């Protein structure tokens, strides 16, 4: 598998590390992992760096994950890069909002590395 540059956006530093660990356990060959504590930080990173995969929480202070997603699309940042939301919000409505905002995948916390593998690997391979 080719080397992946990932951006993980979550206001919890612990959760960013857990997501990174799950990606590695899922078999992703992570070359670089950029971390952002909010959507605003995530946008700043995307303006300066190229990435191959974005994973974002939804519930975050300053700028939530859905607004972050809409801004990525509005500013045409990271075109063609798959975005996967990882969140405690699990209702159909939240999934629908995420997909309408431009997410390609959705993982509910708590999660297993197997779920991460099932939902992220096909997107990375197709990108």
């Amino acid at each position, binding site marked *: 598998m080719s080397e992946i540059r990932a951006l993980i956006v979550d206001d*919890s530093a612990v959760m960013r590390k857990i997501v990174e660990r799950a990606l590695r356990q899922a078999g992703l060959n992570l070359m670089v992992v950029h971390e952002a504590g909010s959507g605003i930080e995530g946008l700043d990173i995307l303006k300066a760096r190229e990435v191959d995969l974005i994973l974002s929480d939804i519930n975050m202070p300053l700028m939530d994950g859905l607004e972050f997603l809409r801004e990525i699309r509005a500013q045409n940042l990271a075109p063609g890069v798959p975005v996967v939301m990882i969140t*405690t919000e699990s209702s159909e409505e939240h999934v629908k909002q995420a997909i309408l905002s431009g997410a390609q995948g959705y993982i509910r916390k*708590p*999660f297993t590395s197997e779920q991460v593998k099932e939902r992220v690997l096909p997107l990375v391979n197709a990108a």
Partner: protein
Amino acid sequence: MAVSLRDSVQLVSDPRNLDASVEEVFRLMLGVSCRRDSGPVTEDLESVTAVVGFGGMLSGACVFSSGSSAAIEIAAHLTGMEFAEVDDIVKDGIGEICNMLAGAWKGKVPDLAAHCGLSVPAVITGRDYKLHVQAPEFQLHHFYRFDGASFAVTIVCDGLQ
């Protein structure tokens, strides 16, 4: 048609939903099996409490509480790291545990999942403090244990539409 949780208060307040949520979060994220316990056995003076608020059709909070040694053990299982004290990483980890418990609990009832939002977690540490809620609609307060760690999870509902 307007949605009302008042008609499904029995479902929302079903104590089995809380037990299932705790079991799910600890099994998937920590790889441990939790069981209900009769009461707190911690001798720690220091407490760690995380609070995630509910807003929308249900208002209230999910509250996680433990002694400092249990918080350290939970954070160690969650992160794969070792901790000597309740530092910022432990507090962050306990906040995330509470966040996932709140999300898993509300996810057990579809109308609740769709019409109730979560706040970001707040974590409090200290000694000799108690949580008081005046006249809640309902309250669930359960103790759990795994290995040597015991903790409590409380769901407080102070408003239901």
